[in-house]
Each structure stands twice: as C-alpha cells, then as structure tokens.
C-alpha cells in the first residue's frame, strides 16, 4: 500500500475529513477526537499528516482573517509551520 494506490489516497482523505469534522463539531478540542486522530495518522504517510495539519491551521487563520476576528496581538502568538 502506498500513495500511488488510489484507494489508499481516498482512505487517507476520508479519515482526514472525518477527523476535521470532529474538530469542527467539538470546537477544536483535540481531546475529544483522539480515536479519529489515531486512525488518520495510521491511514496517511507522516509527511501528509504534517502537511494537512499545517493546511488546516492556515485555513482556519484565513477564515478568521476574512471575518475580522483576528486581533493584532493574536497575530504574534500564531505558531509558524511546525518543524518536522
């Protein structure tokens, strides 16, 4: 099994979407989505997991920025891309 296999890719994306849906439902409380997190990490390559985590963080930031919910002091506290 590898990313070259379409079914593998689709499973990875599915577990990612399920995990993100859980986070949306529980207002980003990771403690309530641990089981889905483990499934997500086991279904995707490590580099993809890192990539998707960064992507989600960026998407949330973009959404907040568009809604004007980001304060100037928050901008400083936002973490940069995690170093692998």
């Amino acid at each position, binding site marked *: 099994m590898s*990313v*070259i296999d*379409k079914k593998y*890719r689709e499973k990875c*994306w599915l577990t990612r979407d399920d995990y993100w849906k859980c986070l949306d439902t529980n207002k980003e409380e990771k403690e309530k989505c641990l089981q889905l997190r483990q499934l997500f990490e086991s279904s995707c*390559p*490590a*580099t*993809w997991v*890192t*990539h*998707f985590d960064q*992507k989600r963080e960026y998407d949330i930031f973009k959404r907040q920025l568009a809604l004007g919910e980001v304060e100037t002091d928050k901008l400083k506290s936002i973490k940069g891309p995690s170093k*692998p």
Partner: protein
Amino acid sequence: MSMISHLFSIRATTCLTRNILRPTPIRLLSSASPSANKATNANDHILPKELPSSEKRKAKFNISWKTVSVTFIGAASLIAFIYFLDQRKMQKRKVLQRAAVGKMAIGGPFSLITHERKPVTDKDFRGQWLLIYFGFTHCPDICPEELEKLSEITDLLRRDKSTQKNPFQPVFVSVDPERDTPELVSTYIKDYSPHFIGLTGTREQVAEMCKHYRVYFSQGPKVGDDYIVDHAIIMYLINPNGEFVDYYGRNKNAKEVAYAIEQHMNTFKESNK
C-alpha cells in the same frame, strides 16, 4: 541813375529769355524732322507686338509635354520613395517579430521519457495543443485536485474534437525524478484519464524543462524515507507550433479553462487559414 538802371534791366531780360528758350529748340527739332518721328513709331509698334507673342509662347511652354513629363516623373519618384520607406518599415517589423519569437520568455525545448519509457522531445508534440501540469505522484492533495481538473478539461475539449484540426494533449510532468519512475507515473496518471501522457527523466532533464517554463520546485525536509516537493501550481498551454500561449492557476475551474483554451484554438485556426 536812370540810364544805369535801364541797362541792368536789359541784361536781366536777356538772361531770362535764354533760359526759357533752351528747352524749346528740342521740341522744334522733333517736330521739324519726320524721320525721328518714324523711328519712334517703329519702336512703339515692335514692343507691343513682341511682348504678347513671347507671353503666349511661354504659356504654351508651361502646358507643354515637357512640363507634363517632369510632373509625372516627380510623382513616380515620390511614390517609389514612399514604397521604399514602407518596405523598410515592414522589414523592421518582421525582424522584430522574429526576435520576439526567438526570445520567448516561457517555454522551450525539453528531452524526457514518457510513462511508457519512450524518449520524447518538444518536437515530437508539434501539431498538438498541450496543457502541461508539473507535479509529483506523492502529492498530498493539490496535485490530485489539479489532475482531476485536467481530466475534466480533457473531456470537455474532446467532445468538440471534430471542429478542431489539431488534437488536444494533456501532459503531466514529474518534478520528483528521484522517486517517480515511468512505471509509477503510469500507474498514477491512469487513475485520472486514459488520455494523459506522463513525463519524467533525470534530475538534470527535469530541471532544464522547469527552468524553461519558470516552474519553481523544491524538495522539502525528509521524514524517514518520505518527503514532499513544494512546487508552483500552474497549467501551461502550448500551441501546435510549440509556442507558449497562456497559463491557468488554481483559481480557475475546469469550465473556465476549457472555454479559454477553445478561444485560443479558434484564434489559432483563423490565423492559420
């Protein structure tokens, strides 16, 4: 006293008389000699006769064949000069056009291997419209999304296949030559469309093509044996003459891209009739 005054008056009268009489002799002479009168009359007759005749001759000369021929030659010379300037101007334009074409900013030659292990160059694709996407098989999400879009574009354009003379060919180029062998690329592209051609090659070959097409790509940090290649997300449209025509980013959907390409195809078709 009276005798002296009388003498003085006589002398004065004599002087006055002489002064008055001087112009008179000329008149008398002219009236007296008829030959002089005849000479004068002859002169008067000659001048009026000559002037009108000479003027008439000059008028005829101005409208004569010499004038017409000179005017004609002048006009012909002017026309020739204008034509010469026009030709030179067109020549300069052609030279500039050639220079512009020769110095194309995006696009250029490449030498790679297809997913069927067949060596190809840019010349092998002459006569075809190419839509080229640069990605890699281990791409997490963007490449699959873009390749799905490319597949949809292909389907849209192949529907109107009969109206276009030159066929449309989607191309996937791997920017990860270390991992993407022809076999992997072959398996990968078949998930999206049977019409795709996948290209790969040595690192140098891929780098050269990416340089010509101004494609940014960079291998990211490794996690074990795995890594992600960061790269520009752009599709390039190449016309049947091998010239770069247009590019499409992530913000365009399949229908928008297909419509834009159809416009380019029609323009190319019209200009090559």
